[in-house]
């Protein structure tokens, strides 16, 4: 009875540059590579995950080292040279592989820790594997456990609730002010990279429209086209501000572009709707005094960094909890897997006892004439009771944890004691 191993190999955003990940990504969908892998006889079960941050293969096989090479060649041959590929690939075996999968599912290995997207991608990938019937007994259970581990992490820790970057922090603050960002108007003043990123993030949260204001109108028009928004010149700033809910400012101007008086003057026109101003320019674009106005919330880059820092601390605390959950689930799964290992022996042992019982009963009963059905039944019961009692301790011995003999040894002992080794060459 050879022991099957769970193997996970892949590349992710941590140790593989984007140029290589791009080439390795399974852009043609899951069907084709899953079917290709099926050609490999050594694979018993397999599953594939491909996202923009990672490509991972998970499989069960008897000979991990050799199969690993075969899988890599089959999947990635011709895409990247072996010299480029080899240092990027990480390979995990058995409990390491399980732990890694659970960590990924719980979004602890994501670029933005705690983001929820990965679980959906994982489920999608698993759906393909189960449709193609490439996932069997072990992988089915493993992936379901991965989903439930991820769910536990999500409900028992607050890792998903934490913001990690400036734009996340801005969105989180915006939510505390507006409740929902759906349908809100945003304005970009100046066009830095960070401002663009923040705007993109806001749009993904359902912002209705982005207006771009810039010193040179041409650049504003270009950027506005990217966000499908409007462009305006700097002279119209106040005019536009009356319609805006969220403003992100990042001009290279050395002076303030908005004073407290400016903002105060437009508030009645806005009917005092809240205004969220984000100043990520250095030196600052917006007068810090603006924050003293009612219904106006001004955050500069340091304030946002504080939010990020605060969330980081909280996230680290939560990550400890999350890792503990992943660890627990890994141990549970490995127990199940090990119990699986003894299952064939238990089944064989019980079958052997059963066949001995049957044979002996047949011999005995044929010689006993004129016994009633009831008596016959009780003889049968006695035979199986004796067999059951005799097997009780060997079975306990197989199932329970022993300090002096590991599972493999115990299996071997029981098999040779009961002569269950006919199917093996040894």
């Amino acid at each position: 009875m050879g022991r099957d191993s769970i193997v996970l190999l892949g590349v992710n955003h941590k140790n593989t540059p984007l140029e290589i990940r791009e080439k390795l990504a399974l852009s043609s969908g899951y069907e084709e590579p899953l079917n290709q892998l099926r050609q490999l006889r050594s694979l018993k079960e397999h599953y594939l995950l491909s996202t923009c941050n990672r490509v991972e293969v998970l499989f069960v096989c008897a000979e991990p080292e050799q199969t690993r090479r075969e899988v890599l060649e089959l999947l990635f041959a011709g895409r990247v040279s072996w010299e480029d590929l080899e240092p990027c690939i990480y390979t995990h075996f058995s409990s390491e592989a399980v732990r890694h999968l659970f960590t990924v599912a719980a979004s602890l290995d994501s670029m933005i820790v705690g983001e929820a997207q990965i679980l959906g991608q994982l489920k999608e990938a698993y759906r393909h594997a189960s449709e193609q019937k490439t996932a069997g007994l072990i992988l089915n259970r493993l992936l379901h456990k991965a989903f439930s581990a991820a769910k536990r992490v999500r409900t028992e820790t607050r890792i998903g609730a934490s913001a990690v970057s400036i734009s996340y922090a801005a969105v989180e603050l915006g939510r505390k002010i507006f409740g929902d960002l759906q349908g809100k108007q945003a304005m970009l003043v100046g066009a830095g990279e960070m401002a663009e990123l923040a705007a993109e993030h806001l749009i993904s949260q359902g912002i209705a429209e982005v207006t771009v204001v810039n010193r040179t109108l041409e650049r504003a028009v270009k950027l506005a086209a990217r966000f499908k928004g409007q462009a305006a010149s700097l002279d119209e700033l106040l005019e536009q501000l009356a319609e805006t809910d969220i403003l992100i400012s990042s001009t290279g101007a050395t002076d303030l572009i908005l004073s407290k008086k400016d903002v105060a003057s437009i508030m009645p026109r806005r009917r005092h709707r809240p205004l969220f101003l984000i100043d990520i320019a250095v030196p600052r674009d917006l007068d810090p005094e603006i924050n003293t106005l009612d219904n106006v919330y001004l955050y500069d880059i340091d304030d946002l960094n504080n939010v990020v820092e605060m969330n980081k601390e909280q996230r680290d605390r939560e990550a400890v909890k999350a890792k503990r959950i992943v660890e627990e689930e890994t141990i549970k799964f490995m127990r199940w897997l090990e119990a699986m290992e003894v299952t064939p022996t238990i089944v064989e042992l019980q079958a052997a006892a059963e066949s001995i019982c049957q044979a002996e009963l047949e011999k005995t009963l044929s010689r006993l004439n004129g016994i009633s059905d009831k008596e016959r039944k009780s003889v049968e019961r006695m035979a199986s009771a004796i067999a059951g009692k005799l097997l009780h301790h060997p079975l306990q011995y197989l199932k329970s944890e022993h300090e002096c003999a590991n599972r493999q040894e115990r299996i071997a002992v029981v098999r040779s004691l009961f002569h269950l080794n006919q199917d093996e060459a040894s």
Partner: protein
Amino acid sequence: MSYLLFLCSLAAYWAAAIFYAVFFVGRKKKVRGWGRAFFFTAAALHTVNIAARYLEAGHTPITSIHEIISFFAWSIACGHITFRWRYPVKNFGAFASLVVALLMLAAAFAPHEIMPLPPELRSWLLPVHASISIVADAFLALAAIGGLMYLIQERQLKQKRFGFFYHRLPSLDTLDTLNQHCVSIGFPLMTLGMIVGSVWAFQLGGQRSWGWHSKIVGALVTWLLYAGLMHLRFAKGWRGRQVALLTMLAFCATLVTFFFLLLKGGGS
């Protein structure tokens, strides 16, 4: 019999308040479920209590101090329950249940015997006036609770110190909307209650005590404050901090009026 129901609902309100408070600190969803279950149970028991007391007394139980405070607590509880379906406000239950539980405790300390109604109070206008006014006050109380939450949250956002409350309180917009809805319901009801009250006062004629006058003045001041609040919000577009502050100020005036009423030992 009805008092036993009262005690049961008192206990259930406290259980709800404690569960909500534990959820507020620990944020475990299961705990909130328990809080809700206890709160609904308490409100149901309380409803039965009021109905039973009505049958026992033979008149609407809004005459003694005990009854008035209890009815006030009941209205807040029902107001909160009706609101939480349409405008879910995160962690509002923690605050509302605490206020209700405290009011119930206050009611428990007031003498709860059923007193025969003095003849001058035997008018069908009394229960109408009293119930409308108390329900109005309940909505204004909810608005004030929302106002307090708003002020706490606004302070966190303005000072950029994100402490204990920042993560636990809902967004400013949610709280402002809650305030708007509660005042929009409370103010017309209050006006209606006052109209019924003055019709009744005319019916009564004479018999005016010191408490009666101070109550009238208190009610007028309160009404003017809320009228001003409505004007500022809907005509001038005010919102946010000033409105929250004004809501709380106006509610203080409501409480003063309420206090005058209780000084007289209930009644008109």
